């Protein structure tokens, strides 16, 4: 026993010493961390994790990343400045809200030369939430549409949101467990904007959704593609980024952007107003906009990345919709607390019936 303890102590001593030396070597040798830290706050699992190390090696920054699940979780953290982040990833409507409240800083394009890689067709939707791309740059984008199983719908022509109200598909429909997207779908059928604050229209949309509820197999966000791949559902409302992955695993799967139009969303990188390392944050964004990095991310996520360097990879109508389709799309907007509460009331009514 004694000899064992001695050996263990020796090994520990060696490990600690080597560790210390390696640590010091790292600090003086000019690698990771020499240029300070970059604090990143991002949706969970939203870029290829290998890239973190590649970025550290390339730029000499030490990256510290925290994750969140929804934009609504990010907001209080940034608003109350409970943790200091340099660069964040958030969806379009949240970017607009953060800009309005002065919580983002303008991007210095001199530090982001890769911004020239941004695809042209993503730019019009920026006009809706960040005109002129002053504060944010795109990470991924996509649209909502109907994913369907060609053999389970017997070759029927799925092209409209109203197909989700077809009793033929009772108990085979998966809808998003997400309030605003559900109202977007009902709104497109009734011809209302997804950003309406007219209570009469919201009532009508709720009634329409309630009519469909008995047909719905499940309200699901992330698990929707699994249900489609496993053929537990014939139709699912899903975002375009899930299509390539699902088709790889089940060749019967197809996807359509309904003719009434849909929601187009963009998730963006932005630098916070309370930034401590603005250059580092911009370096991170610049790195993410690099062509090779975009390719890595695209292969990892299968979500469309609006980067001209990978245009040939995303060249299909699902990932890269035509201007004609995009013209019928809307982006989600902030409606303010009062309208949020109203929607939330009607949504609870939908949920509890």
């Amino acid at each position, binding site marked *: 026993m004694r000899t064992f303890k001695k050996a263990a102590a020796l090994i520990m001593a060696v490990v600690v010493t080597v560790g210390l030396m390696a640590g010091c070597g790292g600090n003086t040798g000019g690698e990771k961390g020499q240029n300070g830290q970059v604090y990143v706050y991002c949706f969970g699992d939203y870029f290829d994790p290998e890239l973190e190390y590649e970025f550290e090696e390339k730029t000499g920054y030490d990256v510290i990343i925290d994750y969140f699940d929804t934009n609504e979780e990010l907001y209080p953290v940034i608003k109350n400045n409970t943790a200091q982040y340099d660069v964040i990833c958030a969806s379009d409507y949240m970017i607009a809200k953060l800009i309005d409240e002065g919580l983002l800083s303008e991007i210095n394009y001199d530090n982001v030369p890769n911004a020239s890689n941004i695809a042209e067709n993503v730019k019009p939707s920026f006009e809706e939430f960040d005109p002129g791309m002053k504060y944010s740059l795109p990470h991924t984008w996509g649209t909502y549409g109907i994913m369907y199983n060609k053999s389970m719908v017997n070759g029927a022509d799925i092209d409209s949101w109203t197909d989700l109200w077809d009793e033929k598909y009772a108990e085979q429909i998966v809808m998003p467990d997400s309030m605003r997207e559900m109202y977007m779908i009902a709104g497109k059928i009734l011809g209302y904007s997804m950003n309406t604050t007219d209570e009469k229209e919201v009532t009508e949309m709720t009634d329409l959704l309630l009519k469909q509820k008995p047909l719905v197999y499940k309200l699901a966000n992330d698990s929707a593609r699994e249900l489609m791949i496993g053929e*537990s559902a014939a139709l699912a409302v899903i975002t375009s980024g899930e299509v390539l992955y699902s088709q790889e695993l089940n060749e019967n799967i197809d996807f359509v952007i309904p003719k009434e139009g849909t929601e187009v969303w963009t998730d963006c990188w932005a630098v916070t107003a309370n930034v401590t390392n603005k250059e580092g944050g911009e370096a991170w964004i610049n790195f993410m906009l690099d062509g090779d990095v975009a390719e890595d991310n695209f292969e990892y996520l299968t979500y469309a990345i609006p980067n001209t360097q990978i245009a040939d990879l995303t060249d299909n109508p699902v990932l890269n919709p035509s201007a004609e389709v995009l013209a019928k799309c809307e982006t989600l907007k902030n409606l303010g607390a009062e309208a949020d509460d109203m929607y939330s009331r009607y949504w609870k*009514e939908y949920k*509890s019936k």
Partner: protein
Amino acid sequence: MTKSAIKRLFSGPFLAFILCGTLVPLVVIAFYGFTDRSGAFTLDNIMAIAGGHHAQALGLSLALALISTLICLLLAFPLGLILKDSKIGKKGFMVFVFILPMWMNFLLRTMAWQVLLEKNGIINIALKSLGLPLLDIINTPAAVVLGMVYDYLPFMVLPIYNALIKIDHSLIEAAYDLGAGKGLVLRKVLIPLSVPGIVSGITMVFVPSLTTFAISTMLGGGKVNLIGNIIEQEFTVSSNWNLGAGLSLVMMIFIVISMALIEKFDREGEGSMI
């Protein structure tokens, strides 16, 4: 340093933990619960529990929690009796087998049920190949009850088992000696003496079942709306922390009630075993 000063010193970390981990968050929740978005005092968030959808969700939560607590009790008491008299190996081993699944994250175990119960899931594939009728309970309250029973059953088994093994065997023998049958021994000896364990078991299953939102989200398919789901939505999606905090405060009443019950019946502290 006097003895009591040393004692106080050692209780320091505990007091700090209670302060930071319990009291401060409670005060923050109470603050949010009793104010509106602008920070003005209001009782609306508390009274909101009586509003149609909230009361309905609370009712459903109470019903499902009661059902799953009852099922757990019906499963756990006989199991406790079996474990108590078990001759298989050391007694500790059988109990160990029961708590083994608890070492795995409960979300993971619930997610496993989601895959098992799916329309084209493993259970239905097996049933289909045997020519049996398919199980169609996923995304219904029945699946949620199944998940609650599965996740919380060990919390019922352990306190009941602990109460049962403490019963002096000579009491049971005395009852038989005096002519009592098996049923009478169960009714007059075993059950009354295990009441503290049963009460801790009931509260430990009932309270988490009442407030869960993960099980109902995963196995209810977003269609079973419990009060826990509403509170969670207020925080993560609707950005109405005040309403969420107000409703949480109301839910605390149920926890206080169960703590009072434990206090009344569980003098021996079986509940503290877990």
